[in-house]
């Protein structure tokens, strides 16, 4: 229970490598055409965005509506490095992510003392302020945005950075620091009375979430050649939020499943334009009305879930008490 399970970890790594390699091979052989590759990359970026927002909204229970703003910071930060300096792409991504993380601290410190809807509206405001400031800086293209960003993002990079994001956030959540973060969602007053520095953990969760949003922004900027302030508006924040809510606030696997599903759905509905968003909106309202906890609630998807269920059934059939 309290040791590194090396066998399991090697197995997971093997599965990941096989998945990555087979996609890579199929891209090479032309079985996966550029359109599918684009969507695979979008899935990866969306997973990073959803899982990182889930840390803030799901695990820490703070309601952020400004995730796209941090994505913008990362996108611009990374793009500026590649466009204006000779530094390698890795450093550009790192710079964008760290810049977004620092912005997360700067935004988080004053706003995270607010609660519920007030926090939601304040983060939304900050997202819009970040965008509004970018529009007003000519050095980074103002309202027209930046273009001619080299296409440096590829499948391999997105895949492994997505894996890294999920591992970092999952490891954080499943530790005493993660429990401290979750306790704030459960009952902030009790958490503080039990010695948890709630401000510290709120800001920490917020800035870690922002940092990865920035990473996603950097990847995004270097795949689509151009970035504009309009790309990172409230609607983008909302898109990410839908993934988190649909997957279950407080479930990493839920966010992953929702990010995959919604990216595919969105690609399939691309031709419908406005109707896509009508369907999105209806989906969201229906989920809230009938399953407000989302697909997974706060649970994680695992193979054990099925085992537990069958055990429960047997237990009930024999009429014995279970759950000890």
């Amino acid at each position, binding site marked *: 229970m309290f040791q590194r399970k090396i066998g399991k970890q090697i197995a997971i790594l093997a599965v990941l490598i096989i998945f990555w390699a087979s996609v890579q091979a199929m891209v090479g052989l032309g079985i996966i055409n550029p359109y599918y590759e684009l969507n695979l990359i979008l899935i990866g970026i969306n997973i990073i965005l959803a899982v990182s927002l889930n840390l803030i909204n799901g695990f820490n229970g703070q309601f952020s509506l400004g995730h796209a703003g941090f994505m913008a910071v990362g996108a611009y930060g990374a793009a500026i490095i590649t466009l204006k300096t000779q530094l390698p792409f890795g450093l550009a991504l790192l710079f964008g992510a760290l810049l977004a993380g620092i912005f997360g601290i700067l935004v988080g410190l004053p706003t995270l003392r607010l609660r519920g809807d007030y926090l939601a509206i304040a983060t939304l405001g900050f997202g819009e302020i970040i965008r509004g400031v970018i529009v007003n800086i000519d050095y980074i293209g103002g309202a027209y945005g930046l273009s001619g960003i080299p296409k440096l993002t590829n499948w391999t990079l997105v895949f492994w950075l997505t894996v890294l994001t999920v591992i*970092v956030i999952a490891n954080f959540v499943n530790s*005493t620091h993660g429990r401290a973060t979750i306790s704030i969602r459960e009952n902030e007053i009790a958490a503080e*009375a*039990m010695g948890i520095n709630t401000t510290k953990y709120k800001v920490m969760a917020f800035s870690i979430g922002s940092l990865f949003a920035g990473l996603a922004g950097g990847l995004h900027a270097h795949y689509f050649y151009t970035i504009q302030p309009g790309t990172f508006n409230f609607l983008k924040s909302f898109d990410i939020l839908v993934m988190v809510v649909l997957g279950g606030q407080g479930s990493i696997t839920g966010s992953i499943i929702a990010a995959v599903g919604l990216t595919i759905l969105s690609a399939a509905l691309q031709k419908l334009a406005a109707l896509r968003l009508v369907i999105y909106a209806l989906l969201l309202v229906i989920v809230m009305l009938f399953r407000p906890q989302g697909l997974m609630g706060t649970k994680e998807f695992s193979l054990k879930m099925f085992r537990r269920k069958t055990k429960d059934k047997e237990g009930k059939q024999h009429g014995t008490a279970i759950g000890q």
Partner: protein
Amino acid sequence: MALLSVSDLSISFGGLRAVSNLNLELNKNDLAGLIGPNGAGKTTAFNMLTGVYLPTEGDIKLDGKSLLGLKPYQINHCGVARTFQNIRLFGDLSVIDNLKIAYHSHAKYGVWGAICRLPGFYSGEKEMYEKSMELLKIFKLEHKWEELANNLPYGEQRRLEIARAMATQPRLLLLDEPAAGMNPQETHELMEMIHWIRDQFDLTILLIEHDMSLVMGVCEKIYVLDYGQIIAQGTPEEIKNNRRVIEAYLGEEAS
């Protein structure tokens, strides 16, 4: 020297003086009660002691060190833990996670250790699990360690709250109506448990309670609060026969 000394503690909300000139002295290992009619200011006093409210006047000293102006989590780190009148558990988390969270301040590994899963993480988690299980055994909750706190019956939720406060390893434990909603049998068991943990953990305990049988049975020293002021203090015997206390509780004509 007194472990906790509260001098002239007062607080006003707008024009209302909820607590005025509260003076308390608790020595190490004291088991004291704070009683008084509804609205007398008992919970407000607890909230000042634990940093939830900032007093308008007066001072709170723990072992000679002032707690004034510290945040609730800092006061907890100084060795003061509490429970709440309206239970405030981490309801959607398991029983053991409730305790592990309270152990957090004593965690042995940092954020990097957690993210990189350094060896310290595994040993630190093991230690937290073992310590939590020990406490659960003491509070007779070990068989429910995996259940969600919300799913426990009421009496067990109260016990879990005390266990959780104990997990922060306090010197001073503040219990806000620990027996509220319990039946006489549960109350009796709780009395014994409070006595036992005081001796076992070398604790000082201050409790707020409405249940007189519990207060008289377990407390060695009682403070009576009415309209924000201490009107009497002494042993249970002295309090029972105090005219002002009887007046406060029953009204003047009854005395």
